[in-house]
């Protein structure tokens, strides 16, 4: 470890996760590419999201099943899964921070939430494209979309909050609490929007189970996305750590 005394001790890097990270990146790229090819060449065509009967969404009557747009699903869902897993890690690191008060967990939580935000944005983008084509509207208050919108807003608020507190330890404690609240809020939000029958919003049936081919394809892409997310997390972590080390060094030399 770092020699004792004045030398800055910081969130460690350079252990096994950093050795794994490049491999994870390669694996992620390979898996997502394989998943991409599978989605278009191998998985038999499935109907897209179908609506219970025919529904009026926006200005268009929607009832038909569309084939190609359904291919978005093979990336949409893995990305959504990844974002939620990143949020779980963020909340876990936040909890560890609150118990130990160690700055490194704060950094970890912050970067995990950055990854969460990134993947939520990806989920929204892919989801948007789907909604736009299948239902002809840019937005529909569908439970999943709504949940992700709310989650995205909380995560954005998390970063705004970080920006508006100056004192590092207080900032870390506040944002950890918000991250945990976000983590609790998301499932409740999904349940609430899901369980309450609404007379206005169409109930979108996407279930009926996935065929084994679909499941496999989603699993492959999900594994790939997780690898990519991990590699990104680690790269960001190293970069932030470097910046912190430089800051610490500057303080040591500054006077």
């Amino acid at each position, binding site marked *: 470890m770092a020699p004792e005394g004045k030398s800055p001790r910081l969130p460690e890097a350079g252990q096994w996760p950093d050795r794994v990270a490049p491999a994870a990146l390669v694996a992620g790229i390979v898996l997502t590419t394989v998943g991409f090819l599978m989605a278009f060449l191998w998985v038999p065509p499935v109907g897209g999201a179908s609506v219970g009967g025919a529904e009026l969404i926006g200005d268009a009557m929607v009832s038909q099943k569309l084939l190609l747009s359904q291919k978005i699903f093979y990336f949409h869902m893995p990305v959504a899964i990844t974002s939620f897993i990143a949020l779980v890690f963020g909340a876990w690191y936040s909890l560890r921070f*609150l118990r130990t008060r160690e700055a490194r967990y704060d950094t970890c939580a912050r970067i995990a939430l950055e990854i969460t935000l990134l993947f939520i944005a990806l989920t929204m983008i892919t989801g948007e494209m789907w909604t736009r084509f299948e239902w002809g509207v840019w937005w529909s208050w569908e439970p999943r979309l709504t949940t992700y919108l*709310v*989650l995205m*807003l*909380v995560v*954005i*608020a998390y970063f*705004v*909050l970080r920006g*508006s*507190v*100056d004192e590092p330890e*207080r900032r870390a*404690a*506040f944002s*950890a*609490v*918000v991250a*945990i*609240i*976000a983590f*609790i*809020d998301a499932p*409740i*939000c999904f*349940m*609430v*929007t899901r*369980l*309450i*029958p*609404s*007379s*206005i919003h169409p109930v979108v049936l996407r279930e009926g189970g996935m065929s084994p081919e679909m499941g496999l394809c989603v699993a492959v892409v999900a594994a790939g996305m997780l690898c990519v997310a991990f590699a990104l997390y680690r790269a960001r972590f190293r970069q932030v750590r470097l910046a912190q080390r430089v800051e610490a060094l500057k303080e040591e030399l500054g006077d």
Partner: protein
Amino acid sequence: MAEREKQERARRSDAPASPRSELCARPSALEQYRVLLMKDLRQELRTKEMLVSMGIYALLVIVVFGVALSFARPGADFLEVSGGLLWALVVFTSLLGLNRSFSHETENGCLEGLLLAPLDRGVVFLAKATSNLAFLAIVEVIAVPLYWVFFSSFAAPAASAPLIVVPLLLGSVGIAGIGTLLSTITASTRGKDVMLALLFVPVVFPLLYACVSATTAALAGGVLMEEAFATSLALAAGYDVVMLLASWVLYDFVVS
């Protein structure tokens, strides 16, 4: 090793029983809770700052709704919207109140004074949440009938309308609980008003959704009432329990 620890402990318990002065006897948490709550209520009764500003704000929101709806045709459809409008009123008014409620504590560093006392942090949270709930309830008692007076000409609500008291109560409890935690956080940030709204609205979204559903069901009655009312209330109650517990546990980390 264990032996030494034991000795250490013995030595510590040898130390004078308590450094507490003869003058004091540790009060119960309930007593402290009562004292803190009375403090908030007394302060508010004296200045009426929060109640007046929240009340006037509620009235103004109603006026804005009046403008917004002035070209709508009265009819039964209005009942489906009115629940949502009522909750918009509650949310904006409570945002204003929550922002105010904590500025008292930070103004002179009073919160620190409270934290110096031998006082469980959970008690501080519960007392503050209770007083916020009380103020919110008072404002609702004034604003909801007012809302009815202004908009009852649009459509007559169903017979089950008085049941909106239940979602209003559940909603206010949740808003006061999570709102107290969030306003404590934002009280010491830059641009705290915006910050509170930014955190508060998405976090209470599920509660809001459930409460709007229950309120609409109660106002519209009929099939909707049977289908959605109980489920919505159960979900709102679940949210209240989870979030109150979480806030209560997390409060300690926020204040210290």
